[in-house]
């Protein structure tokens, strides 16, 4: 049913997200695109050098995350999966939707599980994606 799946994670709750994705794929040939978005926005008056340092650290973190996703999805057990990692810079929700549109994916998988306080204080990427996604979404409850 789903031939091209976009799996988004910021590094948290990666195991349940991967587990649910694999459960959907089962034995079918599927293309999986893993996405990590380096959030580049910083508040006014943030020193330029610190902003550069943040982007460098987040990029390194993203590479690590995409690498471990690759290991999970491309293990001999899951030979039918073709995995590709994509790293973008910008607003996570916007970039996830943009990549989903550009790649013409059938399904977006992402985690959700923030409590109401965290949602109010930090915002929710999954809520924003839900409002503008071009395809079906699987929200994996992570807590």
């Amino acid at each position: 049913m789903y031939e091209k799946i976009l799996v988004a994670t910021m590094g948290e709750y990666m195991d349940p997200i991967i587990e649910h994705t694999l459960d959907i794929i089962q034995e079918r040939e599927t293309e999986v695109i893993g996405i990590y978005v380096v959030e580049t926005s910083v508040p006014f008056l943030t020193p330029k050098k610190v902003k550069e340092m943040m982007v460098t650290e987040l990029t390194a973190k993203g590479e690590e995350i995409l690498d471990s996703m690759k290991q999970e999805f491309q293990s001999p057990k899951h030979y039918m999966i073709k995995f590709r990692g994509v790293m973008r810079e910008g607003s996570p929700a916007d970039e996830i939707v943009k990549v989903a549109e550009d790649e013409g994916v059938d399904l977006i998988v992402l985690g959700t599980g923030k409590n109401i306080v965290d949602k109010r204080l930090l915002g929710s990427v999954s809520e924003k994606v839900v409002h503008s996604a071009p395809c079906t979404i699987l929200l994996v409850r992570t807590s």
Partner: protein
Amino acid sequence: MLLMIIALIGVLIIALVIVIKSADVFVDSIVEIGGALGISQIILGVTASAIGTSLPEFGSAVVASLTGSTDLGVGTVIGSNIWNIAGILGISAAVAGVIQTNKAGLTRDWLMTLITGLILLFFMLFGDISWPAAAVMIIAYCFYLWILIKAQKKHSNETSHQDESQEKQLKENSNLEEDLEKKSEERGSKNVSKKTYLYVLLGLAGLIVGCRLLVYSADELGGMFGISDMVMGLFVLAVGTSIPELVVTLSSAMKGLHDLSLGTVLGSNTFNILIGIGIPALLLNVPVDRISLTFDAPVMIFVTLLLMALIKMGKGKLNRWGGIVLMITYMAYAIIRIFILS
């Protein structure tokens, strides 16, 4: 009178923006010039991040001391340190939900912050802080900087080994090869334009003018409301000049960059005392206010200890409740200091 107060508050806000932006431009340009002169990127990176966010406090402390408002300078430094931990880390942990810690980095930076506080308290016991104390403080900061650079070198060696093996694996990917070529081209360009030197001068001028305006407006406002220089420094200038620490700590905690979050605050606290008081004390005797010795400095050490206790209670993390406890502590300190002890 009302117009004058509004104008002074306006000057204070504009001066703060000038100081923070000038510090940014100054550090940025110095790092660029340093890189072109062949100074290691590690040394530049560590120094820039340690000094970058603390230049406004340092500038204000120096300008305040040189213009005869030493209380304002000492107040800014001690007030910043209390605000950095109890206010900024409190707000950041409460908003982000959690700030995780790296045991080695935390132990090193926290211990240095605590030792720094104790060094200050020790010298305060002898009355004015003069040049021998200043020399000890500046040497202690150089030692800390050396430890930081050593730790960063070790970290860079480890990551460069990892990068090499990753590059080998991924070289099949043509896009990555292009990226790597681009990066090596960027590394190769080491020319510094005249503009960079101009930015250093502009940054420095902005810092001096901005700090002077900041100290002037705080001094005048304090005089109008009958608030002492010490209290103006402890709360108005301390919170104002700590805006860079607030934005960096809060945004890095929200992005999950926990080491940067905690490191910014602890590194800034060490710099504020050892250099923010050390340099002015090298130039002139810095007088010690009695309440600073008996209340402000002990509170500064208390919040440093409280931070570690909360992290231990949170099993290596500063959680939202810990953040709220820190914020309540800051509010209690501010109320006691402003309304009871002044």
